[in-house]
């Protein structure tokens, strides 16, 4: 079959946006787009002397990743109308490979949320069931892929914000190793955790996207100078002799038995391919949520200090001085969840509480990382878990903040420890997709992708929607 030209692919994507009502009157997954500009860029790609590798892959980009042609608002009122004067390295790399940015996708405000209900521009609806959430915070990107608007989308991860929505929307989501992908142009939330991730319709789409964006960037000193393997070669790697770890803490007695059964089926598929499955323990797992919800808000309270009404976006003036302007601007510009986390983060860093909360959390975080080190040092190649304890829930179903935070229970350990993770569909519960998660050693995305290719192939189309 002939691959589509860039113009054909972009035209089809915009037609799909209309057909599924991707804007505010429908799924609300697309915040900003410019059809004519995207088509002009597509024509330029098609005019290149050689076919670009991503010519047929227009992308959707999360609204916290800087683009030159479209606004970058982070789903927040405080950045309404803001257009970046520079472009994120990940976007530049996609463009260089022939991709065209279709749109900016809705997300939880400043990537803080697990349901995409925290966006200042309204919630995103799950394309598989519009009464349900798509997950978050990269819910718009996951929905855009699930709705067939884009084969590849960029998201960002701080505690599971690519893998969790991927699981809820029945697509593939990848969080690379901390340092694997440049964050130049990603609006900072929690700098010791943030990474740009890729969502794709298949493992191959996600691997292709990750191959293009990964690697050292002189504009991001935290990007690692590690060679980037060709992840797509993992499609043909044998699973014979591989050891898959099954951590007991991710399969508690309280887990929905239907989710457990789907995971068992996936592990059986690995066994049938010649892999060995070994029971392991990651003993500090149940401490991950308390650690995460101290470290991430603490870093956020610092990173979001820059949104003060002077340098970016919204400014609410008055006649009562500078400090009042700061307070008025930030209080009107930030939504309830961002306000709550900034307060929480400021509190755990404040005098008298720093040691009890922030320092303690960083120490326990080191224990969580050590759990992974020990597991991989014991000969485990890849760890398999469910991505989430349950499928997508209904809009408005979780009003208690901490109950919402528990959505990240199986994903935030990878962010705290820095290891790479991928979520892919492994079946359905109540006709809704369930994701399985594969975690690997630092910088072993190649091994992680190889296992994901094998599992996707073994489970077949039935496991996808």
């Amino acid at each position, binding site marked *: 079959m002939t691959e589509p030209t860039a113009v054909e692919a972009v035209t089809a994507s915009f037609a799909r946006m209309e057909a599924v009502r991707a804007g505010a009157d429908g799924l609300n997954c697309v915040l900003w787009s410019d059809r004519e500009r995207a088509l002009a860029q597509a024509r330029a790609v098609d005019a290149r002397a050689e076919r670009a590798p991503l010519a047929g892959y227009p992308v959707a980009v999360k609204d916290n990743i800087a683009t030159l042609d479209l606004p970058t608002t982070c789903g927040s009122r405080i950045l309404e109308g803001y257009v970046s*004067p520079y472009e994120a390295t990940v976007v530049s790399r996609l463009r260089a490979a022939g991709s065209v940015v279709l749109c900016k996708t809705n997300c939880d405000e400043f990537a803080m949320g697990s349901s995409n209900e925290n966006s200042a521009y309204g919630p995103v609806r799950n394309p598989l069931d519009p009464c349900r959430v798509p997950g978050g915070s990269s819910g718009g990107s996951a929905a855009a892929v699930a709705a067939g608007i884009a084969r590849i989308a960029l998201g960002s991860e701080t505690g599971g914000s690519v893998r969790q929505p991927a699981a809820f929307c029945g697509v593939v989501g990848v969080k690379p190793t901390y340092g694997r992908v440049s964050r130049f142009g990603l609006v900072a939330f929690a700098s010791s955790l943030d990474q740009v991730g890729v969502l794709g319709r298949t493992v191959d789409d996600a691997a292709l996207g990750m191959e293009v964006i990964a690697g050292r960037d002189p504009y991001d000193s935290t990007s690692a100078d590690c060679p980037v393997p060709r992840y797509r070669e993992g499609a043909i790697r044998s699973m014979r002799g591989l050891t898959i770890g099954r951590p007991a803490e991710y399969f508690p007695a309280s887990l929905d038995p239907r989710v457990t059964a789907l995971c068992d089926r996936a592990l059986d598929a690995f066994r049938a391919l010649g892999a060995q499955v070994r029971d392991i323990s990651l003993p500090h797992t149940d401490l991950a949520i308390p650690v995460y919800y101290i470290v991430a808000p603490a870093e956020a309270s610092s990173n979001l200090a820059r949104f003060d009404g002077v340098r970016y976006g919204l*400014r609410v003036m008055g006649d009562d001085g*500078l400090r009042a302007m700061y307070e008025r601007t930030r209080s009107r510009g930030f939504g309830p969840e961002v306000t709550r986390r900034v307060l929480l983060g400021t509190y755990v860093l404040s005098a008298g509480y720093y040691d009890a909360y922030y320092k303690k959390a960083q120490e326990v975080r080191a*224990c969580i*990382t050590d759990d992974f080190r020990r597991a991989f040092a014991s000969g485990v190649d890849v760890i398999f878990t469910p991505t989430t304890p349950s499928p997508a829930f209904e809009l408005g179903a979780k009003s208690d*903040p901490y109950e919402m935070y528990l959505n990240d229970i199986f994903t935030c350990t990878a962010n705290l420890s*820095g290891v790479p993770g991928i979520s892919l569909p492994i079946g359905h519960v109540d006709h809704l997709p369930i994701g399985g998660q594969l975690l690997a050693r630092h910088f072993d995305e190649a091994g992680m992708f190889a296992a994901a290719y094998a599992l996707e192939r073994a489970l077949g189309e039935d496991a996808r929607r």
Partner: protein
Amino acid sequence: MAVTRDDVAHVAGLARLAISDERMTELVEQLNAILGHMDVLQQVDTRHVETTAQEGNESLPLRPDAGPRFEMQRTLEQMAPEMRGGFFLVPRLSTHEDVSDAS
């Protein structure tokens, strides 16, 4: 460690956030509930644990404290909310008149 209204008012000041009385009551309740879940960390023995900002990144090398040249794609004038005579207009530290009224 129960969080009081005074605590929240104090950190709101540090964070440059204005919180209404009504919202304050709700936030005190929520922050206490959230922090209550964090108390479990105090039971973990971490006396021999060393921490770094991000674990598992041995591949991140030290580098000279100098970055590559950075090209803006738009002029400063295009980005500034307000300019006059080649200068940026910013809010006054203390004023009784709006910036737009200044001559």
